[in-house]
Structures are given as C-alpha cells and as structure tokens.
C-alpha cells in the first residue's frame, strides 16, 4: 500500500517534470485569459514580431495583489484595466483587443522574480506595469531588462530604480522632490520644533535624508526622528509621547494612508495636537479611517482637489463607479496614466517589446491629466505637486 502510493507519487512528479519539458517552448499559461493558443516559437528573440500573430495585444500587470501592499497594488491594477477598457470599448487598436494579464507578486521579491520570469517567457506579453514595492520592482527589473520587456512602475520610489536598466521606467516622483515639498510646508508655516516619522525603507530613508538637509538649510534641527516598519508597527504612542515631551510642534510623516490616520488618532488620544504634513495624506482611506482626527492634516498631491484639471474628474467618476469605491488615490492616477501611455504606444504602431521601449524612451511628451510628462534619460518623470489640507472631511487645495 505504502509502496503503491510512493510509486504513484514518483509517477506524478515525473509527469510534472515532463509536462514542463514538453511545454517548455510554450508561453506560461498563468493568465486569466481563456486560451493560450497564441503559442509562439521559443527560439524567437524578444525583438521578433512574435506578438503580431496573436489576436490580442497583451499587457501584464505584476503587482502586490495580495499581502502587505495589496491595497496599492489593486488600485494600480484597476486603473490600468480602466485605461485598457477605454481602448477596447472604442474598438481596440488596429482591430485587435488589448488584453490585461494579472500577476501577483505578494510583495515578495522571490515571487516577483517568479512572475517576472513567467512574463518574460510569455512572448505575447508586450509590456509590464509593475511592481508595487521597490524591492519587487528591482527584482523584476533584473529579469525584464535582459529579456527586453518594457516595465513601468507606478508606485516604487527607490533611487535605485533610476539605474535599474533601459527597459525600466517610472511614473512616480523621486523621494527628493516629494520630501522637499513637505519640508517647505513646515518651514513656510514658521515652525521651529520639528519631528519626523518615516517608514523604514528606501522611500522613508530617502525622504529623511532630504528633510534633514533642507531643514538644516533653514536653520532647523529635527528634535525627534524615528522610523517604523511598514505593515508591522501599529502602535505609535511611544514615538508620539517622546515627541510630545520634546516639545515638537510640527511633524513631517512619511507614512502611507493606513498608518497616517493611526498616527493622528494616537497623537490626539495622548492630548498631543501637532501640525502634521504627510506623503500619505491624499487618500480617501485617510478620511474614512481618520474621520475627525485628520482635520487640518496637510499633504501634497498631483493637482488641486478643488480645481480638477480636465479629464481628471471624468477619470475619478469612472473609477469610482466601475469599482464601487468612493475615492481615488494617487497610485490609481499614475497607474491610469501608465496604461494610457502604453495604449498610445500601441496606437502609434509600436507593437513589439522593443518598439514600445523605444517609444517610451523617444523623448516624447505625454499630455496627461497631471500635466505634461516626459521620461528623462533614466526613465524617470517628475510629476508636479500641489499642497492640500483636509478641511471638513474633504481635501482642499491650499497655496501655502
């Protein structure tokens, strides 16, 4: 009995291995699409016009759809989907539909490498939007670049991504610029006793370094600066008690939309009411989680919420209606823009991986809802930020 089951097990293993060998030349069937009939020869290199034989254009999203950063990942995925749906609703491109393939990296670089390989192996995939966390984006870039797949990340801000390779593009601001905007908010308000809370990752550390320098230029020393682990630290009372006893008046918080309301709530429950400006403020999650506690919170966003540029309002409405949510966040905006830019590339006739890369890198300017963007020689963009404040439970643009 035991022996039989063992033999069966061995046979099953052999079956798996040989199946792999047999379909070793076929694309990975990991997509949500119905059929993977679009098998193409494995010998064709990335630049070969393999995909033109397929009846759809495939774009992949490789994001944290579950796990620690799933919130951002799903926003971006939904936004890209919307951009693609727009094109498909209008009859597709050259008569072909655009198909979105989802890959989940679970915010784990090992998984990111796995899905990146799956994408690289699927010759019909033309470009990737992803990943969510910088560590995953870098792990993916190590595979996309040699394989020649254009990659756009919509949320990763690590400075290392700048040099990740010529196929890696970023539609998101660098740490330095973002931090500078927030530091200036505090300086302009005239606060001298400053504290800082930041995520212990490349994003937070980068912002911290910029902030120290900028505050120093203004003659301000940071009294208390503490980092915390994203997704793990939920109790900020210790940090806040320290700040309170140090006499901190203003806090620059490099925190995401989940932690920020907790920081505010916990500060107030200690009877501590500092001025706070934060990178994570512009998100309705902050409003729903924070309620009255986040009144007066400052932030920065791509555009003045009271004065939405043309197209943005429409995008907002559609996004909220399609996904049954009552708000839109910044990653969704950058995700949507990424999707649109890729659609533009396809429309322009760039229908291979290399053609899309060349299109992105051609120095073209893109007219987007956040203004005119252009990828620089490193594949980065700067999206101008405006300040905003939470007033009566809503985001309001503010000049200071």
């Amino acid at each position, binding site marked *: 009995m035991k022996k039989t089951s063992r033999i069966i097990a061995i046979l099953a293993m052999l079956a798996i291995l040989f199946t792999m060998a047999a379909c070793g030349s076929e694309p990975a069937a990991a997509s949500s699409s119905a059929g993977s009939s679009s098998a193409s020869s494995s010998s064709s290199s990335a630049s070969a016009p393999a995909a033109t034989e397929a009846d759809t254009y495939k774009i992949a999203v490789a994001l944290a759809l579950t796990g620690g950063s799933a*919130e951002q990942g799903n926003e971006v995925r939904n936004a890209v989907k919307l951009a693609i749906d727009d094109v498909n609703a209008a009859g597709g491109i050259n008569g072909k539909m655009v198909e979105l393939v989802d890959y989940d990296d679970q915010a784990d670089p090992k998984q990111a490498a796995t899905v990146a390989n799956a994408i690289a192996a699927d010759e019909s995939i033309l470009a990737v939007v992803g990943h969510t966390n910088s560590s995953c984006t870098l792990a993916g870039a190590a595979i996309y670049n040699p394989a020649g797949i254009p990659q756009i990340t919509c949320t990763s801000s690590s400075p290392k991504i700048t040099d990740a390779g010529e196929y890696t593009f970023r539609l998101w601001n660098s740490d330095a610029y973002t931090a500078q905007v927030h530091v200036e908010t505090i300086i302009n308000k005239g606060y001298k006793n400053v504290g800082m809370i930041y995520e212990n990752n490349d994003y937070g550390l980068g912002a911290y370094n910029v902030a120290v320098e900028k505050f120093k230029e203004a003659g301000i020393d940071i009294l208390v600066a*503490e980092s*915390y682990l994203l997704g793990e630290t939920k*109790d900020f009372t210790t940090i806040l008690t320290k700040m309170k*006893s140090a006499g901190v008046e203003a806090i620059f918080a490099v925190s995401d939309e989940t932690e920020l309301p907790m920081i505010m709530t916990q500060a107030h429950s200690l009877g501590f009411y500092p001025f706070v400006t934060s990178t994570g403020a512009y998100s309705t999650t902050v409003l729903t989680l924070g309620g009255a506690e986040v009144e007066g919170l400052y932030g920065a966003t791509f555009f003045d919420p009271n004065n939405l540029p043309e197209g943005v309002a429409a995008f907002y409405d559609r996004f909220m209606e399609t996904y049954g949510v009552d708000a839109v966040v910044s990653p969704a905006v950058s995700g949507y823009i990424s999707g649109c830019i890729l659609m533009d590339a396809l429309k322009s006739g760039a229908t291979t991986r290399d053609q899309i890369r060349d299109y992105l890198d051609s120095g073209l300017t893109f007219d987007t809802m956040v203004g005119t963007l252009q990828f620089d020689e490193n594949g980065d963009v700067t999206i101008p930020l405006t300040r905003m404040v939470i007033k009566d439970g809503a985001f309001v643009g503010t000049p200071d």
Partner: protein
Amino acid sequence: MYLQQIVNGLTLGAIYALLALGYSMIFGVLYFINFAHGDIAMVGGYVTWFVAASLKMNFVLAIFAGIIVSTLLGVAIEFIGYRPIRRAPKLSAVIVSMGFSFVLSTSVQLIWGTRSLSMPIFTNVKTFNIGSIIINSKQIWILVIATVIMVLLTLLINKTKLGMAMRAVALDQSTSALMGVNVNRTISATFAIGSALGAMSGIMMAAYYGVIYSTLGGLIGTKGFAAVVLGGAGSIPGAMLGGMLIGIIESIAGTVFNAQVKDAVAFVVLILVLLFKPSGILGKDVMKD
C-alpha cells in the same frame, strides 16, 4: 514621560494578556502553541466591524457577534484539526495550526479585502489629565474590561466544576478521564473560552487603534506567545502577568531606544526567557520529563 509610557504599555499589555490567556489555556491542555489563535482573534475583530459598520447595529451586539463567531471557530478548528491528531507528534499539530492560520487570514482578505477598515466602536475619545499623565477613555475602557474578564476567568477556573475539569485535564488527561471527566468536552470548552478571550483581544486592539486590518492576527499573535513564554506556559496568572509585562517592556524599550527595537523586544525577551528560565515566571518546570 516614563509614567506616560507605562500607562500606554499597560493598555497594550492588557490586550496582549487577553490573547496570551487563550494561548496559555490551550497550551495547558494540548501542549502546543496554536498558531491560528491570533487569526481567530482577528476574525472576531472583523465580525465585530462587519456587524457594527456594515449592518450598522449596536456596538455591544457587534462585540457579542464577534465573540460568538470566534468561539465557534475555535471549537470547530479543534474538532476538525486537532482532535484527530491529539496523539500524534506535536509538530504535526503545529503545522495544522499554521495551515488554519493561512486559511483564516486569506479568507478574511477575500471577504473583507486588504484595505484597513475603520472600527466604529469607542470612537468618542475623551482625555483626562492626572498629574503629568494623560489617560483617555479608550484606555480606561480597555483596562476595566480586561480586568473584569481576568477576574471572571480566575473565578471560573478556580471555583467552578468546568474550571476543575480544565485543571484536571491539564494535569493528566488519562487520569482525569478515569476520574470521570469528559476530556473531549473539556478541551472543547477550553478552546471556546480561549477563543472568546482572543476575540475580545482582537476587538480591543482594533478599537484601540481605530482600524482593523488583515495582518492583525499575525502581529498580535507573536506578542501573545511571547507573553505566554514570559509568564510561564500553561499558567493562567502567568499569561496575565506576561502580557502586561510585554506591553510595558515594549513601551520602555521604545522610549529608551527606538520604535523598531520596540517591535523586536518581545522576541528578545522570548529568547532570553527561554535561555535563562524556560519555565517563565510562573510556569511549571519544562525541563522535566
């Protein structure tokens, strides 16, 4: 400032203690750490959120709903997962409990999404100044409720027939079976009570921070078992003491060092206790055969 940090630590400690009690009771009867316990606590929090926020019902009702669901869940898990392998190596039970932890946390993500949700109970916070210390109404509520629960539990264990049966089973299963104790029913009851305490801890945690999120189970879970080891595995007063101490040690460590040391300090305590006094403060001798 240290006094203030101790007050903060005590509040967290009370929450850890409730969770640790469940761990410890289950450890007492089955001799393994139920890794699904933190997730059972989280489910309690989510159910409470669902009833209070989505169904817009009274928060007391919501809390009871959370506790009941967790209790049933705990009993069901014991029945399906642990009872059949009670005599198997403990490592097998540990793996099964990790499997349940996976299933529960992922199910919660599927049902309620990965976004953090705002917990609509105890939102009206007032703060009181006592000398240099500030204490708020949430903290008072948590401390009061936790104390009441602990007193009731102590009475239950020491004064009732069920409590006696639990202690007997913890001491020696086969002998207590011979003495006429229904071992299966007692273990089920232990899981029920332990899970209910866990749910209370999960609900309080969510209420304290004002949000509930899908990684809550794992986060408080680890603090909970650190508290169990510190207090002494299998000991009820030990779990209470351990929880409180972990809360306070965390706050102090966070003050002296930084927030990340604060998050790691529970593990450092765990290791040190196991190295130097594996039986914990109030536990039975674990080195004995």
